[in-house]
């Protein structure tokens, strides 16, 4: 980059710019104007630049006052919504971390477990708890996802079911929640401590998303046959989870408890 042409008048050119752009303190500006009075060339430069400035502002200034095209407003609102979701992701990410902590602090103490001897019970309960915890984290991670909420979309449902059934080692069925207003978005495969996990995502007309998380629990664990619904309230991502014949299920979404329970019942009835 070559340097700007030296100012013949001796006044630093940066000061001339600052004067034209109104970036000088009042005293400094007044002083400079005095010097310009004795320097016709620099004064002419300043005058020309002022003319440019005024012409540009007069020409383009009104564009900022003109009505915005609806398409741009819509695009801006869309972008803003995504930003809120991105911000929510961070909040939920933080929340997910809080969930992990809370689990560690016996936050699930309200969950009732129909278990045998205490020692095994706590171990089994721990496994199911851990499963539910992973479900909540997976929900928090993928629910706000805009571009890739699922790996395989509902359009390829047959493939989705075959694939996840194979990976989870058991024939799966995708519950239909249309009666509750939810359509399948698709599904994805996730790693769990006990092996593969499947996550199905559903969305209603309002864009509300719920996820169903499922996978096999360790064979022979004490709660392998527990079928009771457990409600978990993490503050922001409530859900129900249950264990059925060695398989764990968790449904999570930002819904009232009653609505979630209806969904959980609908899923349970179909599986």
């Amino acid at each position, binding site marked *: *980059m*070559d*340097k*700007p*042409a030296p100012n013949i008048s001796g006044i630093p*050119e*940066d000061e001339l*710019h600052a004067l034209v*752009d109104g*970036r000088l303190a009042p005293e400094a500006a007044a002083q400079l104007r005095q010097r310009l009075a004795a320097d016709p060339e620099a004064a002419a*430069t300043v005058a*020309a*630049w002022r*003319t*440019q*400035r005024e*012409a*540009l*502002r007069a*020409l*383009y*200034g009104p*564009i*900022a*006052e*003109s009505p*915005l*095209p609806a*398409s*741009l*407003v819509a*695009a*801006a*609102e*869309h*972008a*803003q919504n*995504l*930003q809120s979701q*991105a*911000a929510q992701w961070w909040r939920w990410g933080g929340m997910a971390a809080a969930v992990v902590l809370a689990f560690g602090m016996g936050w699930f103490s309200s969950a009732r477990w129909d278990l045998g001897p205490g020692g095994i019970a706590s171990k089994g309960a721990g496994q199911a708890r851990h499963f539910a915890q992973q479900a909540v984290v997976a929900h928090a991670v993928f629910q706000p996802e*805009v571009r890739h909420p699922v790996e395989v979309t509902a359009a390829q449902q047959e493939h989705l079911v075959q694939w996840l059934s194979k990976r989870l080692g058991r024939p799966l069925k995708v519950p239909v929640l249309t009666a509750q207003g939810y359509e399948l978005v698709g599904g994805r495969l996730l790693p769990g401590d006990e092996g593969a996990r499947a996550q199905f995502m559903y969305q209603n007309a309002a864009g509300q998303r719920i996820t169903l998380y499922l996978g096999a629990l360790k064979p022979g664990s004490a709660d392998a046959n527990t079928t009771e619904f457990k409600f978990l309230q993490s503050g922001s991502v409530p859900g129900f989870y249950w264990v059925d014949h060695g398989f764990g299920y968790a449904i999570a979404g930002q819904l009232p408890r009653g609505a979630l329970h209806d969904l959980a019942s609908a899923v349970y009835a179909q599986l």
Partner: protein
Amino acid sequence: MNRSLLVDQLPGLRRYARALTGNSWAADDLVQDTLERACTKWQLWVAGTDLRAWLFTLMHNLYMSQRRAARVAMNSVSIDELESELQAPASNSDDPLDISRCLQRLPADQRAVLLLVVLEDMSYKEAAKVLAIPIGTVMSRLSRARSRLRELMESGRPAPSESATGQPPALRRMK
């Protein structure tokens, strides 16, 4: 959060895009592209920081890369040269070169600095931030932009002597 509402930034973005591109369709396309880019880049915007500067940076980068792409498509003809060529016929008319046409003849990086400072009222520091260049470069580009614009404006004024007396008597009737 209200200070960071995207829709509140639209008027300024449109104004700048209009002056930068010199064309109202291209300008709104550029704003639209900027908003789309924002969608995919939100995670890079740190909430609470200067949304306006961030959006102007996105727009500037988009504009420059679109120009580069156009230049490649044009078989490496410099857009600036091309613009001068395309607009040369207009300047041969007796109309004075208006400021918008002169503005489009500036190199894009100079035009950007001039517009951010003059039209968008950014401080030199803000303009440097938006364009990701040192403040010294802002000052030198501003200087060159203003000098060049002045030359263009002054040279574009109607020169009656040229058209009235400089013209040969082309229609002299042959006997």
